């Protein structure tokens, strides 16, 4: 078939001429528009294939035997009876994979299955593969494990006591085996600045643990095929890190491993490191030669955890009478659970990410992450910085109260600005925080509500910032952080090969929008092939809000390269410069005369004839001068930061302590919204998740006085309550675009930043409503009820309404 035979049909589906005029005027035709997601069709029809939807020929089902003890030595494991059970094809124990791993290479302290010690109730000790789940479960019951029970450590305070049992071997002689990481950093003379401050606000805060609960439980399929190649399909958000750790732990050639990430049913940081099931399906399959699937039960999801660290935080905030922040001094204790996970980074993030959007004269933080015999904590949406942000924004509210200043105003007065450096030397580029404050102040009708509503109703404000990806990869290397490959076919079809992990946030759509914008094809001409290490270039994964910024930039690079080639070839055919050719809406057209045009497929044919097969790669690496040179200075560094402000409005029932959040206004500076629908979705989902932690969610583990020590109190979605459609407040998204100089089309992150302020905004709103400071989370009815009765809330509330508003010390 010759190109022109395709022309009529393609011309009929292409955009009309006035769209081209719009494009010729320099307007984006895809970017910034409310387009559909490229994978939406599959999701609304049930056609999308998630890992558990896959069945391979001969596939077996695996199950993992888990420790009933929070802390014990494994004396022996006898699997002979399980192996003898008809239908069982393989059994593995820790002895089959005696290699430690961790997503952070510096803190490898975890075995795929425990070798000689279990460290929490739920730690894996053995795994079986059988013809079906029932047989696998029966086989687990036939495994005899003899334990020598050890004293469990259930609180970080206990972990730090000199006589506490050591959960891990100390990394170095003289070190404490119960500490993952201790970070002390000071910028400027904090003690002197506190001495000089007109007002010092002190507070102690507690952030309870919470977990991700994606609706899809973790699932993995492993197949060690007869040719000696291992393929692992997994509901992961970090296929590349999984790829590397599989090779290391199983002692396989990494080039003989393929990791595929099918559609993922939510992650939120809960799938951002390797898990026991991925190693187990691989090891079991290697043993029996058949594909093996393991699907976590919901209980196992709770035990695998890696969610928000419980933190105890003490802050001192020194301010001057004009509201400027003179000194911030923080001391934080992180309850890390049994293993390191991302904990080394968490310890740093808990201090490093607090230094914007406000400018600090001096700053010091001291963070300690301790091990306990509970499921390991890790990164949950807003990794490490949600907890200190809660504490700090409440501190700032208290400072404003002491100074009789509007909390909006104190935030404006301390604005750090754009194109600047934070006190810990992080480079800030674009910064739309003031516009965020303006937007929520206006939309919430703040001036008419703050300190003006009846007892029981209130509003609160809070701000935050977050990273658009980390400046350095998890394992040190000089290679690009993100890469993409694009290939053009003669039909006009554009294939994008990306390692970016689509976890629902829309990364597949994001790269498709960019490719369609640059190459002028209709959106449905773009096919996105993602996260298959046999096909797609390395990407580090969906964590630290890096995909849009980094993969987006890589995609712009590859697509712009192809665009130039196509335009040059068409220009040559028309005898005009390539720069005079535009690509948009399914056409290649003359920018000076849009009537002169050819369907995009024809343009690709012309280009292919001239340049040969059309494919290009793009990559992105971070600028290296965006952080300080001190030890730890790179952690928290990012090529760009997003900024957020929230106003929450609450109604508190003073009889029951029940807090109803009526509305949250969310203003978020995402740089540029590549698709406003998706950005709003991230803002709403973030605010929802923050609201959920503020009011409802809590990981509770029993102590010896209340049952079995270390046992999760309620590992189910009925008892670990997450908000339903009836609980969730009205969420109002207000997009702010600061157009970042280095982001793709100016874009920055939107997936994690908008979570942070919801919690302190609600806390501050509760104070406005009833005169009670909620410094410990969650703000559940019993906690609020107790706080209401602990002091004279009504009197504090009356004082907060008095003209000077200086006399709030008691309520602090």
């Amino acid at each position, binding site marked *: 078939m010759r190109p022109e035979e395709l022309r009529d049909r393609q011309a009929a589906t292409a955009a009309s001429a006035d769209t081209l005029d719009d494009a010729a005027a320099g307007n984006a035709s895809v970017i910034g528009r409310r387009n559909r997601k490229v994978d939406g069709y599959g999701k*609304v029809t049930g056609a999308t294939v998630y890992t558990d939807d896959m069945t391979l020929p001969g596939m077996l089902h695996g199950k993992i035997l888990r420790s009933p003890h929070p802390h014990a030595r494994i004396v022996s494991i006898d699997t002979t009876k399980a192996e003898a059970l008809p239908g069982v094809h393989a059994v593995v124990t820790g002895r089959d994979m005696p290699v430690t791993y961790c997503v952070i290479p510096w803190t490898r302290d975890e075995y795929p299955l425990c070798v000689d010690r279990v460290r929490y109730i739920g730690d894996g000790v053995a795994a079986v593969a059988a013809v079906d789940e029932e047989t696998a479960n029966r086989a687990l019951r036939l495994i005899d494990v003899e334990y020598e029970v050890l004293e469990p450590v259930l609180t970080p305070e206990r972990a730090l006591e000199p006589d506490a049992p050591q959960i891990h071997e100390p990394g170095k002689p003289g070190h404490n085996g119960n500490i993952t990481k201790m970070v002390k950093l000071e910028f400027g003379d904090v003690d002197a600045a506190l001495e000089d401050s007109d007002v010092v606000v002190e507070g102690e805060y507690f952030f309870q643990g919470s977990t991700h609960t994606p609706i899809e439980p973790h699932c993995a399929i492993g197949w060690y095929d007869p040719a000696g190649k291992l393929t692992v399909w997994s509901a992961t958000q970090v296929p590349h890190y999984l790829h590397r750790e599989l090779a290391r732990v199983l002692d396989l050639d990494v080039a003989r491993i393929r990791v595929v990430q099918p559609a*993922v*049913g939510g992650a939120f940081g809960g799938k951002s490191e390797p898990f026991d099931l991925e190693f187990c399906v691989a090891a079991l399959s290697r043993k029996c030669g058949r594909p093996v699937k393991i699907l976590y039960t919901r209980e196992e999801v709770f035990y695998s955890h890696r969610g928000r660290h419980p933190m105890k935080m003490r802050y001192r905030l020194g301010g001057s009478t004009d509201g400027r922040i003179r000194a911030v001094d923080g001391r934080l204790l992180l309850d890390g659970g049994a293993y390191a996970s991302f904990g080394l980074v968490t310890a740093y993030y808990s201090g490093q990410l607090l230094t914007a959007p406000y400018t600090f004269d001096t700053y010091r933080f001291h963070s300690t992450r301790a091990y306990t015999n509970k499921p390991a904590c890790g990164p949950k949406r807003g990794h490490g910085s949600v907890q200190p942000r809660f504490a700090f924004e409440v501190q700032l509210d208290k400072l404003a109260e002491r100074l009789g200043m509007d909390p909006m105003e104190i935030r404006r007065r301390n604005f750090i600005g754009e194109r600047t450096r934070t006190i810990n030397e992080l480079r800030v580029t674009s910064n739309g925080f003031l516009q965020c404050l303006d937007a929520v102040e206006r939309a919430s009708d703040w001036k008419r509500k703050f300190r003006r509503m009846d007892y029981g109703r209130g509003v609160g404000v809070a701000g935050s910032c977050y990273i658009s990806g980390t400046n350095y990869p998890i394992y040190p290397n000089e290679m690009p952080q993100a890469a993409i490959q694009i290939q053009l076919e003669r039909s006009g079809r554009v294939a994008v090969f990306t390692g970016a992990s689509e976890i629902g946030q829309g990364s597949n759509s994001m790269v498709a929008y960019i490719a369609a914008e640059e190459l002028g094809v209709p959106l449905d001409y773009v096919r996105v092939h993602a996260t298959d290490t046999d096909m797609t270039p390395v990407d580090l994964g969906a964590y630290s809000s890096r995909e849009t910024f980094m993969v987006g930039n890589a995609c712009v690079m590859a697509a712009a390269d192809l665009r130039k080639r196509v335009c040059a070839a068409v220009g040559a055919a028309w005898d005009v410069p390539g720069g005079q050719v535009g690509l948009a809406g399914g056409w290649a057209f003359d920018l000076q005369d849009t009537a002169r045009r050819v369907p995009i497929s024809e343009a690709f044919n012309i280009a292919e004839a001239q340049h040969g097969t059309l494919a290009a790669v793009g990559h992105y690496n971070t600028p290296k001068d965006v952080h300080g040179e001190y030890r730890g200075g790179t952690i928290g560094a990012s090529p760009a930061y997003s900024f957020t402000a929230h106003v929450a409005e609450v109604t508190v029932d003073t009889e029951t302590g029940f807090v109803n959040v009526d509305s949250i206004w969310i203003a978020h500076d995402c740089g540029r919204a590549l698709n406003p629908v998706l950005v709003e979705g991230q803002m709403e989902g973030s605010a929802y998740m923050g609201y959920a932690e503020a009011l409802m969610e809590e990981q509770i583990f029993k102590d010896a006085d209340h049952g079995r020590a270390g046992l999760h109190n309620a590992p189910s979605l009925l008892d670990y309550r997450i908000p339903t459609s009836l609980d969730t407040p009205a969420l109002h998204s207000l997009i702010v675009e600061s157009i970042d100089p280095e982001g793709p089309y100016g874009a920055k992150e939107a997936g994690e930043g908008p979570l942070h302020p919801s919690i302190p905004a609600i806390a501050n709103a509760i104070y406005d409503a009833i005169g009670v400071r909620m410094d410990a989370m969650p703000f559940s009815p019993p906690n609020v009820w107790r706080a209401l009765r602990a002091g004279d809330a009504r009197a504090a509330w009356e004082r907060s309404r008095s003209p000077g508003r200086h006399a709030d010390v008691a309520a602090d």
Partner: protein
Amino acid sequence: MIRHGFSLRDPLTITATLRMHAIIELTVNGDRRSAGIPAHYTLLETLRYALGLTGSKQGCDKGDCGACTVLLDGAPVLSCITPAWEAEGRDVRTVEGIAAGPGALHPLQEAFEITGGAQCGFCTPGVLMSAYALLQTTTSPSEDEVREALSGNLCRCTGYTKIIDAVVMAGEILDRDRDRDRDRAGQESGAAAGAQRAAGEQPAAGAQQGAGE
């Protein structure tokens, strides 16, 4: 009932017959289907493992999250805690069976695509079925009615906002389609009464399927 010699309603018998298989017959999305299943299978297991309909999801396997919601004779049920035998001889509708036809989405599905109601998409099949059931009984549901109807479906991505937008939008589309069809039927006054009735009974593509029919 499943054809065998025991009563599966007796828990002791269920334990005794765990390893037994049975043939179940049911109608799924209009197709008459039969499958040999272990007698203890839930409806969700039957759909996913025996019939290959993997659209309905398992999020908790104990009736807490709603991702497995399907319609049983038009009413939403949690298929992960519905024994397969309860569906014997009955009409089951799943997410795979609500589109109007090949390439033609139900207005609800269209609306989800427009508003961005599906992020990771894992809760979406269950949410769609609850919403579909609501739209069978309620014309142009309000936001509060939608929140109520979806309160058994947990979503962890969206904060529900865009889901609710989508269901309200779908209600309005269906309502407009109904009005349009009614107007058209009215204008064709000369046509036979039978033709009018047929038009009136087909309010919108796909909406005639499912509940109560």
